C-alpha cells in the first residue's frame, strides 16, 4: 500500500517517472527543475532503470531528442522551466502536432528579463497554445500522482498528446513534503511498460513530418482539436482506475466547499493550498466562501468550471502571470470568454500576484476573499484587475 516518504516536489516527480518505466529521458538542467533530472540520473547511474538518459546540450535539443525518441515508439520523460521552456517553444508545437505522448515536469519559474529563478506561471502561460495538455498541481503529492497518470492519459490511443505537469518553483519543487509513494508493482499494474513497437522501423517504412500545403494543414490541426476534446473522458477513466488502487481521488477540477459558496477564489498551483486554508478560516467566521482549483488548464475545463461557479455571486481569479496588453491575466481571460455566452449572474475580478516568486502570504490571500465579499455587498466590480503585492 505504498509508504510515506519525505520528498521535495522535484524528487517526487523523478520517482514517479522512474516508476513509470520511461525508456528515454532527454533533459537539460535549469533551476528550479534540476533536481528532477539529477535524481533521475542517480537511478540511471545505479542501474535501477533501463532508461537511456540523453544529456543534451540545450532544452531545444532536449525536446527534439524527446520527439525523436517518442516517434520511434519509446516512453519519454523530460523536464524544464522558464527560459528552458521558452527555448523549447518551437519544438513543443512539433511534439503535439506529431502526436508524441511525452510527459514533462515543469517547475514553474518567471521569465527573464530580469533574470529571476523564482515561481510564477509566465513560462507555461507563454507556451499556453502549444497543443500540450497542461496540468497544474498544488503540492508534491499531486505532482507525483499526476506524472504517473499523465503517461496513461497521453498514451491513450484517442489522445496521443504530450502533457506538462506543472509545480511551482521552489514553493513545491524544493520544499520537502510528505509523499505517499505507491508500490512499484502497483504502478506497473496501472501503467505497464510501453509495448515494444518500433514506429520508425525499416521493415515498415513511413514518412513522418512531410511538408504540408493549405490543402491538408487545417485537417491535421482539427485532429488535434478532436484529441484535446476527448481528454476529459479519458482523464475520468484514468482517475477512477488510479483511485481504485491508490485511494486518491482526482478530476479535471478540484473544489473546496464550492457547492453552497457565494464567493469563490480560483487559482492554479500552490497558492490554492493557502486559499483553501484561508477559506476554512473564513467559513468558521460564517462566510460562504469556496475555492476552485483547476487541475487542468488545457484542455480548459469549461463544463466543470461552469458547474462549480453557477451558484457564486462573485469570483476572484488569481493569475500568476501577466498577458501584457490583454484585458486580464491568462486564466481570467479564459474565464471571461467562458462566461460570455452563459446566463450567469456573476461578478468577476482578476488578481495578478506572486510574480517572480513574490510570496502570496495568507494575509494577501485573505484580502482577496475580503475584496470578493465587498464586491458581493456592492454588487459591482469597481476594479477589474488588482495588481496585488506590487509597491505603488
Amino acid at each position, binding site marked *: 500500500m505504498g509508504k510515506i516518504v519525505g520528498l521535495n516536489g522535484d524528487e517526487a516527480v523523478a520517482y514517479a517517472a522512474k516508476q513509470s518505466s520511461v525508456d528515454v529521458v532527454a533533459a537539460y538542467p535549469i533551476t528550479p527543475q534540476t533536481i528532477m533530472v539529477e535524481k533521475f540520473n542517480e537511478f540511471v547511474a545505479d542501474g535501477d532503470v533501463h532508461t537511456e538518459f540523453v544529456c543534451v546540450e540545450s532544452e531545444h535539443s532536449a525536446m527534439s531528442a524527446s520527439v525523436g525518441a517518442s516517434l520511434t515508439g519509446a516512453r519519454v520523460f523530460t523536464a524544464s522551466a522558464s527560459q528552458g521552456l521558452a527555448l523549447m517553444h518551437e519544438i513543443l508545437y512539433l511534439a503535439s502536432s506529431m502526436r508524441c505522448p511525452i510527459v514533462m515536469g515543469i517547475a514553474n519559474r518567471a521569465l527573464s528579463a530580469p533574470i529571476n529563478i523564482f515561481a510564477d506561471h509566465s513560462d507555461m502561460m507563454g507556451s499556453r497554445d502549444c497543443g500540450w495538455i497542461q496540468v497544474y498541481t498544488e503540492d508534491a503529492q499531486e505532482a507525483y500522482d499526476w506524472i504517473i497518470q499523465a503517461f496513461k492519459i497521453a498514451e491513450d490511443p484517442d489522445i496521443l498528446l504530450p502533457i506538462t505537469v506543472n509545480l511551482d518553483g521552489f514553493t513545491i519543487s524544493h520544499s520537502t513534503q510528505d509523499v505517499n509513494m505507491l508500490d512499484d508493482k502497483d504502478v506497473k499494474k496501472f501503467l505497464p511498460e510501453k509495448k515494444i513497437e518500433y514506429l520508425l522501423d525499416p521493415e515498415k517504412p513511413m514518412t513522418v513530418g512531410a511538408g504540408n500545403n493549405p490543402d491538408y494543414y487545417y485537417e491535421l490541426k482539427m*485532429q488535434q482539436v478532436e484529441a484535446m476534446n476527448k481528454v476529459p473522458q479519458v482523464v475520468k477513466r484514468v482517475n477512477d482506475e488510479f483511485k481504485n488502487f491508490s485511494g486518491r481521488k482526482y478530476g479535471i477540477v478540484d473544489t473546496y466547499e464550492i457547492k453552497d459558496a457565494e464567493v469563490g477564489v480560483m487559482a492554479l498551483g500552490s497558492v490554492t493550498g493557502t486559499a483553501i486554508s484561508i477559506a476554512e478560516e473564513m467559513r468558521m467566521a460564517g462566510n460562504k466562501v469556496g475555492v476552485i482549483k483547476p487541475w487542468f488548464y488545457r484542455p480548459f475545463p469549461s463544463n466543470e468550471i461552469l458547474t462549480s461557479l453557477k451558484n457564486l455571486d462573485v469570483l476572484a481569479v488569481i493569475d500568476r502571470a501577466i498577458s501584457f496588453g490583454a484585458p486580464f491575466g491568462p486564466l481570467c481571460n479564459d474565464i471571461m470568454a467562458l462566461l460570455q455566452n452563459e446566463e450567469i449572474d456573476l461578478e468577476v475580478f482578476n488578481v495578478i500576484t506572486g510574480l517572480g516568486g513574490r510570496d502570496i502570504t495568507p494575509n494577501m490571500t485573505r484580502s482577496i476573499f475580503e475584496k470578493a465579499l465587498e464586491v458581493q455587498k456592492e454588487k459591482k466590480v469597481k476594479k477589474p484587475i488588482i495588481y496585488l503585492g506590487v509597491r505603488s
Partner: protein
Amino acid sequence: MMSKFPTYKEVPIAGNIYDPGKLVYKTGDWRTFKPVIDHEKCIKCYICWLYCPEPSIDRTKDGGVEINYEQCKGCGICAAECPVKCIEMVKG
C-alpha cells in the same frame, strides 16, 4: 489525383504517410528537352543511371537503361555525363 479531398477523420494521424511509394507525383511535364538514348551506341556503363537526380532512368531486364519520361525533368546530366555520348537532348 483524388477527386475529393479527405476529411480530417480520414487523413492519417499527424499526416503520416504509411504507404510511401504508392503515390508518385509526375514531373515529366517540367521538361523542355528530353534525353533520347541511342541504344546501339550505349555501353551499359550505368553512369547516366547513377547520376540521374530523380531518378528517371531505369535499368531494364536486358541489362540496358531506359528513360522514364513520366518523371524526367530534362536536366541533361545524363547526356552531359555519358562517356560515349549516346544520349541526345531533343525538344519535347
